[in-house]
């Protein structure tokens, strides 16, 4: 495993399976009276969030605390960033405080890469979402959730070979979609992206996945349907005529859910726009794994922190 986790493509099949299997063991911690391990005692994990987040930040914080690491939460609001401090100066401050890992979310694509490779900090960098680029721990927790729901019998050592996964919606602005396509491809799944032509990025033919403009045609052969949030805050042009039209063509409602095979699950990385890309009756149905994804997020992030942070501070190749 690399020292940093910046992209879904950083993980080989072996690495990804190691993360998932480790997370599977760590998930059992939830059943114990003491939900804490001493593994990262004395290590410092900094949550560096330049962009709003609820579940990712809380999830990383819970994961680090369950491994006994010290957690420092940094949010751009209320910090010197609002006075104009640069990413570099912020990073140097964190390094001076001895951060062993920096979990970074930034509105600019590539910011975690810059942090990891600039020499500003020595610790591991974990990308918790950068612009419209990547969000690898979300992809890991999605893969973890799929594996748990779709595998019969023990999940250890099983990948997602042959599973058909349909990712629907605002692919253009979605870091979740990018990371998922890369990771799910590594794990052997067949991914299809479904979106209006305006919401598919240029160069999508080079991604290891198929594309379609027609949601109804994909549903009956899907094991997983993952709905993406329509990211209005990133939309600076008219990508579709109206919300209602988008919802009609690409929203998952009760009728479309009925077209899915019986075993298929519905996922959403959150936060949801109920009534837009997903209907309330679907979000609250037993097929929806949305709450489960949040729970699994903690286990997966514990696994990532453990695998990146144990094994010395010099960042030697792991596992």
């Amino acid at each position, binding site marked *: 495993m690399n020292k940093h986790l910046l992209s879904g493509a950083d993980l080989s099949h072996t690495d990804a399976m190691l993360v998932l299997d480790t997370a599977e*063991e760590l998930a059992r911690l939830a059943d114990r*009276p003491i939900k804490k391990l001493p593994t990262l005692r004395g290590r410092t994990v900094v949550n560096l969030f330049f962009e709003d987040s609820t579940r990712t930040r809380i999830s990383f914080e819970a994961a680090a605390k369950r491994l006994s690491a010290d957690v420092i939460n940094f949010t751009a609001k209320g910090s010197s960033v609002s006075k104009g401090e640069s990413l570099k100066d912020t990073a140097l401050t964190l390094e001076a405080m001895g951060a062993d890992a920096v979990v970074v979310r930034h509105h600019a694509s590539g910011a975690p890469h810059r942090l990891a490779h600039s020499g500003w900090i020595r610790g591991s960098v974990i990308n918790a979402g950068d612009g419209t680029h990547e969000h690898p721990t979300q992809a890991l927790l999605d893969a973890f959730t799929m594996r748990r729901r779709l595998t019969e019998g023990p999940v250890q050592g099983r990948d997602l070979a042959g599973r058909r996964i349909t990712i629907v919606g605002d692919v253009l602005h979605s870091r979740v979609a990018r990371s998922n396509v890369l990771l799910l491809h590594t794990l052997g799944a067949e991914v299809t992206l479904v979106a209006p032509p305006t919401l598919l990025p240029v160069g999508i033919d080079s991604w290891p996945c198929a594309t379609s403009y027609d949601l109804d045609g994909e549903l009956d052969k899907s094991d997983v349907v993952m709905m993406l949030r329509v990211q209005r805050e990133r939309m600076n042009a008219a990508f579709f005529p109206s919300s209602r039209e988008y919802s009609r063509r690409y929203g998952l409602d009760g009728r479309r859910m009925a077209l899915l095979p019986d075993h298929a699950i519905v996922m959403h990385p959150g936060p949801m726009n109920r009534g837009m890309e997903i209907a309330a009756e679907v979000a609250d149905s037993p097929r929806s794994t949305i709450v489960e994804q949040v729970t699994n997020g903690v286990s997966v992030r514990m696994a990532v922190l453990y695998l990146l942070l144990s094994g*010395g501070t010099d960042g030697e190749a792991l596992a």
Partner: protein
Amino acid sequence: MTPDPKPAPSVNIAAARSTGKTPPGSNSHHSDRDREPRLARPVLEEADIARALTRVAHEILERNKGADGLVLLGIPSRGVPLATRLAARIAEVEGRAIPVGSLDVTMYRDDLRLRPARALEHTDVPPDGIDGRRVVLVDDVLFSGRTIRAALDAIGDLGRPQLVQLAVLVDRGHRELPIRADYVGKNLPTSMSERVRVQLTEIDGRDAVTVESILAGDVLVEPVTGTSPAAANDDGATA
């Protein structure tokens, strides 16, 4: 280093059955320490292991005055099949099954910062838990004592047993912590330049305990930490 296919009869079976009370260094292996070992040297064979486990099972019952409240927890990987075998023997004597589980101690180890991250093994605590129970930890080789220290910490996070005891197949000495075993299959004085390899049918396809020199040819392979040759190999089978 493959085990010698024709085991030299360097160990007699009486020694294999020696009780855990024998102090290290005082049994029939003493002469082996003067000889420089170069190949895998068999110490226990299938029948020896079976006899040692039967004796340990009886000792556990005797010391605890029966099987009431007993829970066996094996430390992965090879402690788990050993715990299962001990439980089967205890069940034979007592006529009822006793709870068996496994306890992975990886996250409690004191060398996590020094070594590459390892995959976790299963922790599987019996459904009734360990609170107020008499827990017997089971492992294959007792060496520095660090694994057992980690296991004691792990148990502390799982509950509060009435007492904790330790059963090992082989005690090879060289303790680095004040830890001792309550039940020992075989006391095996070793040099720091040797490795004890335990093989069990459930994992390795055969039952055997061998001692290997970590001399490769005539070049001494330096252990990674200098204090623990076990740390030099990633194979959980040896210690």
